[in-house]
């Protein structure tokens, strides 16, 4: 019986190792995602150090367990036969008290060595300062020149970006895995974090603190561009794209990308979309189940939304409506 099981076990172990190896080669979740910012790099370095020590302890404990289980199995000895009546061994016990202390001290030291590079942004004169505000269920970004964007944060590649993170309603958590760790967005409090995109590209993440019904869809993107692209975006596109970004990032969550309805009612045939004052009052104060999604919006932002929805979402009143 035992003999027959052996090849099965050997196969299972080989298959597991093979699968793990393949997944590891593709970074299939064996370490934090590929870092694209110095702080994320520091975290990953600390991760691998801890991984090394814990893997060693894991192998030690599980090997001892398996070896003892095999070696000291009863082999037909009855329950009445006692094992060695060993009550303890002070020196051994001191060793496995001191051993972990030393290992943990090393791990803590590694963390403290990596910490400044993770916590503190490099000193830079041209750092970009952005205010991040979490809302149910979107992220809002304020740039120094007064521009605003929704859900997508545009940054110049290579520039240190300092973030002031807060929330307008419940606790959210800001997280772009490739650009560093999380920080909670807490109403009434400003937390800070930073990143420095190592290359151009788009980095995705999503809210990491349960914030209500649409928590799963509260996603954020960081688009790192060249300096020139970023300047162009900041001066022009930020304003021309705002209305669309607002509709898609805020309204469409409940009302659908074409305003066709979803969790919230269909709005594409609602004449309110063409009535600035009515629309403004609705998005600023909410009504019934609809939250006050725009309670911190600027007049320019509301204007951008009005422009966009009246031109691109509104498809004409329903025949019964008026």
């Amino acid at each position: 019986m035992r003999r027959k099981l052996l090849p099965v076990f050997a196969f299972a172990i080989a298959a597991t190792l093979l699968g793990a190896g393949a997944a590891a080669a593709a970074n299939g979740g064996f370490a934090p995602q590929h870092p694209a910012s110095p702080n994320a790099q520091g975290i990953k370095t600390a991760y691998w150090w801890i991984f090394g020590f814990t893997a060693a302890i894991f192998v030690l404990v599980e090997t001892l367990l398996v070896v003892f289980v095999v070696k000291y199995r009863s082999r037909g000895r009855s329950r009445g036969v006692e094992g060695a009546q060993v009550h303890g061994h002070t020196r051994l016990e001191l060793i496995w008290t001191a051993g972990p202390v030393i290992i943990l001290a090393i791990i803590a030291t590694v963390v403290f060595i990596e910490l400044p590079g993770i916590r503190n942004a490099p000193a830079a004169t041209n750092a970009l300062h952005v205010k991040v505000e979490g809302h149910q269920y979107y992220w809002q970004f304020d740039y120094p020149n007064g521009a605003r964007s929704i859900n997508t944060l545009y940054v110049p590649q290579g520039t240190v970006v300092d973030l002031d993170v807060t929330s307008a309603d419940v606790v959210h958590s800001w997280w772009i895995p490739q650009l560093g760790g999380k920080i909670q967005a807490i109403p009434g409090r400003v937390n800070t974090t930073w990143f420095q995109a190592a290359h151009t590209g788009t980095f995705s993440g999503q809210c990491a603190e349960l914030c209500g019904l649409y928590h799963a869809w509260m996603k954020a993107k960081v688009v790192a561009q060249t300096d020139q692209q970023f300047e162009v975006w900041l001066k022009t596109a930020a304003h021309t794209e705002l209305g669309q970004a607002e509709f898609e990032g805020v309204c469409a969550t409940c009302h659908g990308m074409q305003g066709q309805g979803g969790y919230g009612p269909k709005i594409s045939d609602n004449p309110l979309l063409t009535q600035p004052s009515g629309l403004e009052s609705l998005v600023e104060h909410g009504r019934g189940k609809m939250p006050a999604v725009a309670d911190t919006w600027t007049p320019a932002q509301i204007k951008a939304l009005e422009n966009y929805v009246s031109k691109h979402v509104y498809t004409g009143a329903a025949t019964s409506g008026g």
Partner: protein
Amino acid sequence: MAARAETVAPVSWKTGRVASWLVTVDHKRIGILYIGTSLFFFVAGGILAVLMRAQLATPNETLLTKNAYNEVLTIHGTTMIFLVVVPILAGFGNYLIPLMIGARDVAFPRLNALSYWFFLLGGIVLYSSWFASGGAAKAGWWSYPPLSELQYSPGRGQDYWILSLHILGISSLLGAINFIVTIANMRTRGMTWMRMPLFVWSILTYSILLVVALPSIAAGLTMLLLDRNAGTHFFIPSEGGNPVLYQHVFWFFGHPEVYIMVLPVMGMISEILPVFSRKPIFGYKAVAFSTLAIAFFSLLVWAHHMFTTGLPVGLDSFFMISSMVIAVPTGIKIFNWLATTWRGNLHFDTPMLFALGFIALFTIGGLSGIFLAAFPVDWQVNDTYYVVAHFHYVLFGGSIFGIFGGLYYWWPKMFGRLLDEHLGKWNFWLMFIGFNVTFMPQHMLGLLGMPRRIYTYSHGGLWEGYNLTSTVGSGIMTIGVLLFFVNVWRTHVARKGVRATNDPWLADTLEWYTTSPPPPNDFETVPYVTSARPLRDLRRKLAEQT
């Protein structure tokens, strides 16, 4: 004579089959009530877990709505913690503490009954929240404000949740005080502190932690309740409140709670391993004192749940070091248990399999905890599936495996019949394999960026693969758990269980001195205790005499 006397005495309604359980103050019956009720809630919470896994099996699944998913995750967590692990350990404590210390009951039997009925009431209140206006609570088991405030959680479900936790808190407090008094005062002759079974040490520590930690959550919940219903604003920032205060108050309770759920199980492991290794525990004092050390340090680590809250680096550093310190006494226990099996005569009955499974899995949960204690790494993995995997290795791979070991070990004492070993082994292996298939991939999901508590996702690729694997694992685990109930059915309903002698495992502690199940008053006589292994002493004495 006797027959005539019986006809004269009026038969009290209290002796009825059901009524006798309703009015009982016998610690053994209350223990069984606790364990039975907890197992019922274990099934309920398990169904919720399987629903979540089904919803996450593939991307954009629509089995559960987002609203239902948030309710399910909240009630699953609250159930498993407050209605399963904590009370089932209270059940084991109730049943075993008086027997283990040679007493005839706990110090306050009526208080004990009250504690159980409060537990049942708390469970009923939590589950009736499904029928509350606006549905069950849906802000997660820690219910951070402002999300749990009236403005963002307008239904009554959140209030039911608060009420339920208040009732359960009172229940646990009463039980804990009872245990402390019982253990301090009612040990039999000769049972000094250093001769107490390690399970008794662990229940004593569990009780002390409950007494210290519960008032904190009671205060937090009361403030939340007032915010929601009386117009206060402890946690509402626009009115001058501070939501971070709740996080501190909650986790000052919440972290000791983790050890409340693990320490007594470690006590069970310290009972089971020596018996099935035919050896004494390796380093009794080290194991007992490490239990106390873990409890003490567990009161100093709460903010490691708050590394992403934006605390000053100095505080983060303190809580990292204090959290790492806990790994030391935990490591002592693991190595002492391993050494307990060294040069033993190991018998792999089902309780032993679960105890060894506990060591294998709890070690993984402990090691992944070191990543989480290192706060910069926590910034990356906090609130992801990595954390979900971590605490399931601790609380399922640890606590629940140990509890199943305890059920198989003490079942013959409680009910007079042994559970079937063949089914028991299937029970163990399916749970063990299913558990790892379920939760190992969740570490990877977290590192791939999957946050906790999302009701769906649209990523394909590895997210989909690992999620599907995890769901398949939960199915295997479910079959394993169901086999336990099949086993109980087979043993008692089909009456195929073998009758247990007083001491079927040749164990060491006093509960095996009395009959299986014990008489209402536990013992006719209790032998004078001269060591931590009184039954082994008796067996040796008997062997010498013959």
